[in-house]
């Protein structure tokens, strides 16, 4: 299977680490771009994201990346990996920045942890949820191949996604609540954690993505 990967660049920050992690994981050709033709030629698409959701959504729409994603996900049905704010952008709305309408590719909300955010025993939890937390796999998925349930991945976020359909959740983290660490639907896999920053486990997940045919 060819491994030409397009990383969608909507100008919101450093995508080199995503690109170099994909190369390290075995991608033959990684293009960081928002060019429609380049993305259309790619075999698979990575949709990363950092920063505030409002700026992200403005940039995504401003560059037509919403249509690109729509095309990749529902028309061309390519394997798509959305990361962090990329994942959040797929939802219907986000509470961040006073409320932002997102892409509604995956119906659901993006909600704040709360301030103060507390564990079930009353202990105060820092927000952002920053660092390495364990991801419990809720069901089998090709992208989990070779990764044990309970493996640590690197997270950094203050908002988390709640899909309307709980069956889409394929991995959870525990941080005062059971949050969605990863969700999957058909040819889309989305992670709240950063596989490109999650050392060996993250590289394994990216490698799995590169050989994934887009079915569950």
């Amino acid at each position, binding site marked *: 299977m060819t491994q030409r990967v397009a990383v969608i660049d909507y100008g919101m*920050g*450093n995508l*080199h*680490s995503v690109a*170099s*992690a994909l190369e*390290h994981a075995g991608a033959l050709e990684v293009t960081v771009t928002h060019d429609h033709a380049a993305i259309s030629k790619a075999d698979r698409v990575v949709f990363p994201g*950092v*920063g*505030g959701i409002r700026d992200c959504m403005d940039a995504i729409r401003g560059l037509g990346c919403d249509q690109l994603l729509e095309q990749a996900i529902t028309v061309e049905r390519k394997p798509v990996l959305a990361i962090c704010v990329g994942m959040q952008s797929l939802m219907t709305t986000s509470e961040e920045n006073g409320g932002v309408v997102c892409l509604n590719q995956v119906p659901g909300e993006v909600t704040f942890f709360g*301030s*103060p*955010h507390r564990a079930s025993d009353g202990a*105060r*939890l*820092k*927000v*952002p*949820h*920053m*660092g*390495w*937390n*364990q991801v*419990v796999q809720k069901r089998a998925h090709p992208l989990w191949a070779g990764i044990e349930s*309970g493996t*640590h991945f*690197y*997270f*950094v*976020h*203050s908002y988390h996604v709640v899909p309307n359909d709980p069956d889409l959740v394929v991995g959870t*983290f*525990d*941080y005062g609540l059971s949050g969605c660490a990863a969700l999957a639907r058909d040819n889309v896999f989305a992670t709240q954690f950063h596989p*490109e*920053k*999650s*050392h060996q486990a*993250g*590289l394994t997940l990216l490698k799995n993505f590169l050989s994934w045919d887009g079915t569950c």
Partner: protein
Amino acid sequence: MALAKRIIPCLDVDRGRVVKGVNFVGIRDAGDPVEIARRYNEEGADEITFLDITASHEERDTTVQTVEQIAREVFIPLTVGGGIRALQDIRTMLNAGADKVSINTAAIHDPDLVSAAAARFGSQCIVVAIDVKRVSEPESLPRYELFTHGGRKPTGIEAVSWAKKMAALGAGELLLTSMDRDGTRDGFELTITREITDSVDIPVIASGGVGTLQHLADGVTQGGADAVLAASIFHFGEYTVREAKQFMASKGIPMRL
């Protein structure tokens, strides 16, 4: 199941070489930053912090290249600090492959830089470094103030209120260094660490003074830190990062092993 506490080896880099001195004087050469970062990555470091301690404008290009090289092969979070004075400096470092930047003196001169940076790049990548010294007499109520220039220049700014202000302005994390302890190997200054971790909702990294593995554990259990940073105990091969993590786990601290 819990969020793991982090061990962050720190590379203090002067003109392209990793160095570490006692109280920032008497500098020892510890080697090539890319090689050392690679080793820490393999040993299971949770993040790496790169502090450019020369940070003169002429040397900036060397730093950018080193950051690029590290980011190409180290797939854990990388924080870069030293000489970050403007939004453009932050952009340059993020583009070079840093995941976070650490702002120190510039935040004192221009606190609005922190809010502008958080608004532009997101709080998740804005670390504010706070260098403190105890200014009260030994038997009196402890008071800590911010110092600049490697601990030589007092600012008169009280540490806890400053930490709260930085959190309110949008810092995503605080890197707290005791300049009294830095390089002494006497352990973290736990009083101020605890006071600040209890005062803010954002994560706090404890730094300055680590000489033993017990010091690392104390930073978390007594200081309440979310992450602990150390340099010399790792650079000169006394302990590996893995040994440090195993030690902390043996003390009941949640770690990624």
